[in-house]
Structures are given as C-alpha cells and as structure tokens.
C-alpha cells in the first residue's frame, strides 16, 4: 500500500468522529466498520465475537445440563429445532431480508411457526429441492398452524442449494428452511 493511503484524511477523521459520537448516543453494543484499508470497531463490554448471543453463566441457576435419570417418560429434546439463526429478524413478509451465506446463498426463514410441508399434498412432488430454480414469489413450502396453511415464498430468485427442514417437521418462527443462491 502506498503512503497516502495510510494517513487519515481530515474528511475521514471527521467521519470517524461523527460515527463514534452517533454510535455513543445509540443503544447498540458494538459497531464494526470495514472499508478498503480501514476497519473500525467500537463497543461496550467484551469485544464482539462470532456468537454475540452467548452470554455466559449469570449465577441464576442456569444449569446447562440438569441431572439425567430423573426425567419422566418421553424426554424432550433440549432446545432443538436446529438452533435457528438468531440473526434472522425477517418479519412475516420479509424472508428475503435474510443475509447471504458464505457461498452467496440466501436463507429462507419461516415466516411463522408451525409444521413445515415441503409438498402441496403427500402424493405430489416437493415444491422445491436442491437444484430447483425458483422465482422470488414462488411457493417453496407450506407451514400449517392449527389447520391454517401459510405459503412460504422463496423471496429471491435463484437455485435452491439446501433444504434444511424435512417434510412434516416443526419449525420455529425465524428458523432457516432452505437456502437459495441468486
């Protein structure tokens, strides 16, 4: 890199300063800004880590694994359902807001909780499987809740790269159902 790229221009400086000040008056915990040749990180508490949700023990009896051998009858899976991606905040109408994955594919998340159906009825082929080309407004699955069926739209045009939920499986709100590469 050349020397002039290493200096902070007065304009850049004013911008950084303003970002820090704006951020200070916000309620966020951290900010990371990466530009060509520049990276800015600001925050409170510990520096951001890949999984910011993982606050540790709080002294409140949050025992991760209660004693076994005491569970009645059918055991419940512990916080199952494929640990939905909490970074997904898409509301019902916006599964397409899901961020890109490493391979450039975009997650389609459950717009509601319920039972996921990958096909319109048991005798039909699936709406979409790996390799299927879909349009943004195309139905890629159904979610049933109390006998009411909701369409799941692709939200983005592309090729299905992964189907994460099996036919008939329960999905939580916001859970990743499939991935589409645009």
């Amino acid at each position, binding site marked *: 890199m050349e020397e002039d790229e290493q200096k902070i221009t007065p304009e850049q400086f004013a911008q950084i300063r303003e970002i820090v000040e704006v951020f200070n008056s916000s309620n966020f915990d951290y900010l990371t800004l990466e530009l060509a040749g520049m990276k800015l990180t600001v925050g409170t508490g510990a520096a951001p880590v890949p999984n910011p949700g993982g606050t540790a023990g*709080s002294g409140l*009896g*949050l025992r991760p694994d209660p004693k076994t051998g005491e569970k*009645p009858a059918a055991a*419940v899976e512990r*916080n199952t359902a494929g640990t939905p991606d909490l970074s997904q905040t898409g509301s019902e109408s916006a599964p397409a807001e899901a961020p890109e994955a490493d391979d450039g594919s975009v997650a389609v998340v459950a717009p509601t*909780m319920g039972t996921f159906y990958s096909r319109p009825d048991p005798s039909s082929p699936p709406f979409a499987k790996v390799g299927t080309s879909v349009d943004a407004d195309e139905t890629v699955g159904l979610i049933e809740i*109390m006998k009411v069926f909701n369409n799941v739209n692709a939200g983005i045009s592309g090729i299905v790269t992964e189907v994460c939920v099996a036919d008939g499986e329960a999905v*939580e*709100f916001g859970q990743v159902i499939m991935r589409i590469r645009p």
Partner: protein
Amino acid sequence: MKLVRALIANRGEIAVRIVRACQAIGIETVIATSEADRDSLAARIADRTFCVGPANALESYLNPERMVGAAVITECDCLHPGYGFLSESPALAKMCAENDIVFVGPSPDHILQMGNKILARKIAEECGVPTLPGSEPVLDKEEAVGVARKIGLPVMIKAASGGGGRGMQIVDDINALAAEIEVAASEAGAAFGDSTLYLEKYISNARHIEVQVLGDGHGNIVHLGERDCSLQRRHQKMVEEAPAPGLSVDLRNRMCDAAVTLARTVNYKSAGTVEFIFDMDSEAFYFLEMNTRIQVEHPVTEMITGEDLVEEQFRIAAGDKLRFSQAEISFRGHAIECRINAESPEAEFLPSPGEITDWQPPIAPYIRLDSHCFPNYKVPVNYDSMLAKLVVYGRDRHQAIQRMKHALSQFAIDGIETTVDFQYRLISSSNFINGQMNTRFVDEIVSQSEKGTSGLPIPL
C-alpha cells in the same frame, strides 16, 4: 391423570416461576417465546425453547393459535398461561380443550362468566355477596344521570370489558356526567371492542383487598386469606401485603367467606382471586371482580401460608382433589411484596428499558425474589417494565417492613432506572408504617415529591 409436559405461554418472571414449579414436581417444560425473549432466563432453564413469533406480542404472546399450535407441535399435554397476555382469554382455554391440551386454569365458562364484570356482579348479587351500589349497564346518558342521582356522587364510569385500571373515570359533577359517558363509551369501544359501560359508587377512602381462593372442580373450595393491594399508582399495584393491616377478624372472615361462596357458586376450578373494595369510613366491603388466573402478588400469600399456588394449579389441572382442607391451611406472620419496575420515578415513571449492567439482589433469610433478570440482561422495549418482585416475611408487619427496608437498601441495580428507591420511600413513610393508607396514597406521595414537599422521614 399425570401431566408430563407443559407449554408455558408467557414470559418474564412468571415464566421462570412456572418452569421452576414444573421442575419441582417433575413436569417437563417448553417455553414459548417471542424472538425478543429467545435468550431469556426462562428459555435458559426450560427443557426446550420454541420461538412462536416476532417481538410484537400480537404475533406471539397474545396469539392463541400460535400458543396452542406450539403446544401441539412440541407434544405438550398442558399449557400454563401465567398472568396478563392470554391468561384470561376464553378463546385460549377453549382452543386448548379442542386440542386435548389441559389448560392450567379455570374452564372457559368460568373465564367468560367471571371475566365479564356485569355477569360476575350479577352472580355475586345472586349469592348474597355485597356489590358496589351501582347499575346494570347504562344504556344512555339519561339513564346514567338517573343512576348517579340515586347512588350519589362521586360515581365511577367503568367499561364492562376493561381492567387493570383502564376504562375507568371518576365523575363528581352531575352536569359533567353526560359528556364523560359519551367519551368513555367511544374510548371503551376503541380499546376493548365493547362500549358497554356501567356506573358505580366511588369510594374515596378505599382499600383494595382481595381474597385468594383455590377450587378443584370437585366441589372443594378453600381460601388462602386476603391480600391488601391498596398501594397503586394510577390503578397499577406497587406494593402488596398479606394479611391486610388493621382488618378485624370478623371483617376478614366475612370477606373470605364471601369469596368462597362466590367460587363455590360456580364450582370454581384452579386458583382465582376475588377482589373487593373496602370502604375505610363505613367498614363495608363490596365485590369488584374476580381474576381467573394466578396473580402477580401471589407470593405474599405463599409466604404466610407455606403453600405453592402454581404447583397447586398444576395438581388441580391434572384432576387431583385439593390436598388440604380449609382447616389444614395455616396462616402465620406477615408478608410484603414490592414490585421493582424498570421505570424512572423522577420522570413520571417512564419506562426505562436497556441493559442491566449490575444486578445484585439482596439475600437474607425470609427474603424471596421472583425475577427473570440477571447481569447484562437487556430489558426489551416491547413488554411491561416489571423486573422483579421482592418479597419478605416477618413474624409481624413491623418486622416485615424492617426486612423490606433492609432488602431494598441492599438491592443494587445499575444501567437502568428502577423503582427501588421509590419503594423504599413508600414503605418508610409513617402513614404506611401505621397502616394508614388507601388507594390514593401512592399518587399523593408522587405529587408531594413533585412539589418537593415529601414530608417523609428519609428523603432520598
């Protein structure tokens, strides 16, 4: 019938409380959360977390389809609604029944009957429980004026479907009544989808006293004594205690008997609370309404009786008969609960959500804390502001107040504004210490401090 797995359709401290009750009696737990509560304490301690919708309660905690749907999907055999949200929704109770999910609460009919104030009032009158001088639903302005003249001013306009202080209006000028009725009807219609109003005599020197009852649906009804919930700010309870201070044995017995009579009349099943207004001037009490759910302030009753009301709710829901007769319930000592809210008393009790940077609750014998908070917990903006219920027990009211003062003084919370210091002021005031308070007490303390003339022994 043995209950195996419960869906908890609530959040906050009561969700934590219900999970722990289930753990203690061997019921598995699935906590239904909104996206905002995915990492809550209840989610951490439950066997399973199931996210039912976004932070907006209408699409999560207030959505019966999703809650019952979640119970079906996760193969729960029962559902506990907690308090607030859907806890008094006949639709939820009914939907549970239709899907073979045991609703941990009363039947849909009980919720419908007792949840409607006019119906409940009628039932009370029929079984001889005194009700406030007032009316059938007022049909129009003219009728309202007639009723008001008959029962005397001031009167209170109430929305039949209101609750929690909403949809109430005090009127002390007969000439203003017609206009107020019109406003109240349109407000009630907008807020509750039901513009039905009724009028009641307004008691100015009033205490709010309520009786805890348990019924098993097999005809057995007991009471667990009364609670005094007179310390309210704008009809929101702040401090509750049991027993009610200064109540004679005779009055206490009559109120408890009235509550049991009412519950017996409908063969009530589950935990319920019969609310009375107590006129301190005439020493008369009047039935107000019945809450068909576990209440926020249930721990004060637990502290003086040694019972666990949430466990009993599950036992009753499982079809068990009550484990104790009235004679086997013993009352001992005095308990006080202070609600600790994320609110700024200096700024008209504006909610103060945000991150709790420090959270060090007091620990000592006879202190109980029901809370979902922990260090670095972020209080979401989406829900109510209650952080914790601080409860103490003493062999008498004096000792309970001393312990509460000690507990409040040791409670360290940082990062957000709370009502801890305000509560300390309330319970330190000589009027409270002497048991001389009524339902306007808190508002008076608030307006005194706004004027800078607190008149309290320990200014903070």
